[in-house]
């Protein structure tokens, strides 16, 4: 082919700067409002909190720089260790919501008439505020006129004071917290089960996998995304456990049901608190724990995104 020069009949059009850089600028125009909000209310405060944790400050007067002293004090604070240990308990026991949710989901994954209603009723607890759940269970556990008390008395036993006994209190609150959380995991699994590949189940049937074997070898691996999310939301739920404790015990009796989230609030903002620096130090520790999960989650997401491209 003869390499004739292109017939440039039209003079090159001069386009405005915006027109030329349209695709580079537009996304920022869309992003700016959200970014500003997020920066002011989420990103900046994280760093401010970390910064405050190096101060002694009662929220009124001038803040005093104390370096790492708040952290040193934290290392020697029994309440902190109680809270940390309770957080660990929360993390571990809250995880029960995942298998329990799966179990309920399996139980409900049928097409009997009225199943939709049953499913929604089972999901119900998740929609209710944790404040209400906390109140319900406070009453439920009441040894004198709560359900637990009545049941014990029916059997002629002295009802335990679940929320008043350091041995039971954390477990009692976690059990209350599990109630909505199981419902949440159940829904995740129900939708997961909906998407389980029918052909793999059939292949499994031909391969002779039955019951638990089918569940373990064929179904569960397919539910991995649901499980992953269930674990993530449960971990976050466990570490954020604030409402229930605030309502049910306020960390009591004598701090034995405290967790970091509530302890932080208590130190920083409650009637006897106003140690902003110390509270921030606790929050920072909590944040660091959460950061492990956040990083893991982002890593997973990064892998997915890479795969998608």
């Amino acid at each position, binding site marked *: 082919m003869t390499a004739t020069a292109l017939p440039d009949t039209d003079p090159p059009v001069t386009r405005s700067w915006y027109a030329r850089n349209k695709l580079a600028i537009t996304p920022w125009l869309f992003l700016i409002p959200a970014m500003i909000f997020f920066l002011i209310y989420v990103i900046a405060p994280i760093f401010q909190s970390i910064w405050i944790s190096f101060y002694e400050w*009662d*929220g*009124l*007067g001038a803040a005093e720089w104390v370096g790492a002293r708040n952290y040193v*004090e934290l290392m020697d604070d*029994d309440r902190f260790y109680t809270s940390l240990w309770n957080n660990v308990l929360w993390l571990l026991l809250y995880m029960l919501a995942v298998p329990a949710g799966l179990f309920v989901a399996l139980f409900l994954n049928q097409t009997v008439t009225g199943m939709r209603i049953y499913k929604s009723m089972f999901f119900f607890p998740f929609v209710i505020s944790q404040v209400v759940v906390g109140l319900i269970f*406070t009453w439920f*556990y*009441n*040894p*004198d006129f709560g359900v637990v008390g009545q049941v014990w008395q029916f059997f002629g036993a002295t009802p335990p*004071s679940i*929320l*008043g*006994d*350091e041995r039971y209190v954390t477990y009692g609150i976690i059990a209350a917290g599990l109630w909505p959380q199981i419902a949440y995991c159940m829904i995740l699994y129900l939708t997961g089960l909906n998407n389980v590949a029918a052909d793999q189940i059939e292949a499994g049937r031909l391969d002779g996998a039955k019951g638990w074997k089918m569940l373990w070898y064929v179904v569960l691996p397919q539910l991995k995304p649901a499980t992953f999310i269930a674990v993530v939301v449960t971990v976050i739920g466990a570490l954020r456990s604030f409402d229930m404790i605030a309502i049910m*015990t*306020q960390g*009591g*009796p*004598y*701090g034995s049901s405290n967790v970091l989230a509530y302890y932080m609030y208590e130190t920083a*903002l*409650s*009637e*006897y*608190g*106003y*140690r902003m620096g110390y509270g921030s130090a606790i929050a920072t520790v909590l944040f660091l724990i959460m950061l492990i999960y956040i990083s893991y989650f982002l890593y997973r997401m990064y892998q997915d995104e890479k795969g998608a491209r």
Partner: protein
Amino acid sequence: ADLVINFDDPNPGPKKGFEDAVAKFKEANPDINVIVNINDREAHKTAIRNFLSADAPDVTTWYPGNRMAPFVDAGLFEPVTDLWEQEGFNETLAAIKPTMSRNGEIWGVPYSYYQWGIYYRKDIFDEMGISEPQTWDELLAASAKLKENGVTPFTIGTKFLWTAAGVFDYLNLRTNGYDVHNDLTAGKIKYTDPRIVDVFEKWKQLIEPGYFIENHATMSWQDAVAPFANGEAAMYVMGNFSVDAYLNAGLTMDQIDYFQFPEITPGLPRAEEAPADAFFIPSGAKNKEDARKFLAFVAQPDVQTEWNKTIGQLPVNSESEIGDNKFLREGFETVSTAAGLAQFYDRDAPAEMAKAGMEGFQEFMIKPERMDAILQRLDKIQERVYK
């Protein structure tokens, strides 16, 4: 001019008392436009930090003693020493003057206070032939007798901690006296001091035989009224504000009565718990002139008389009249003859110490065997808080 007042009790009685007083004040000062904000007490406790520094009202309620210390120290309250001079409060309000003072100035004007003591079921006592105990031994004997008859001697609800502090304060005041109370809350005495240990040992004498109701850690003070009302428990170490609750729970004036916390160390001058409620002027107030007018107004004898009749408490002004109910009369008798008035453990001690201390009391009431560990922990905290 506008006068903004923040008040801290939305419950019907107190609210009415306050509103009536405000109405009267308006009548007397038609040119002042009074604006009131009424908050829930717990909310008020957290909110005050913000509004004092950010958007100060002209008058606010708050509590004397150590509770006012942070704001006084941060310069957020206006001293009213001159007002006291001018209006002669140094005489009429003398009872509360010490706790209203700090750094050589006086910081507010109290409008009400109330006595603490032991409220009891007179009908049960009568039935079992028990009379009002005057000494520690009599108290123990009365308790033993109640227990034998299937009645728990004391009700209490420690979910919100301060109720336990009331018991502790009384045991301490009666065992060691007013000065030890003040020294302890001022951080001058360790918790492992033998005198304090002695208080706990006394307390043990009530705890170990089971003289307090079970499950008190899950109950608020109101919850704890129930066993008292239905006869499962017969005594309650409480403040006078609780009388309403007894009546609401179905008890009649005849069924309940009051006695002073019995003597423990013989001959010790008797000090009492008598927390006061007061008005303060924030230093950021815009209309300080009218604010002072209002403070002067609420200290007037007739105003305090009316107000305290409405809320069933004691007026601070010595020229006011006491409501004609047996509790108020007995209460007035109790506090006016006391050798010293304590505010309360959690008002006298710094907040952080108070919190830790009260948790310790609660823990002790449930696990008395941990006494040593608890006291050592309190020492540790004390060391840090008062440094």
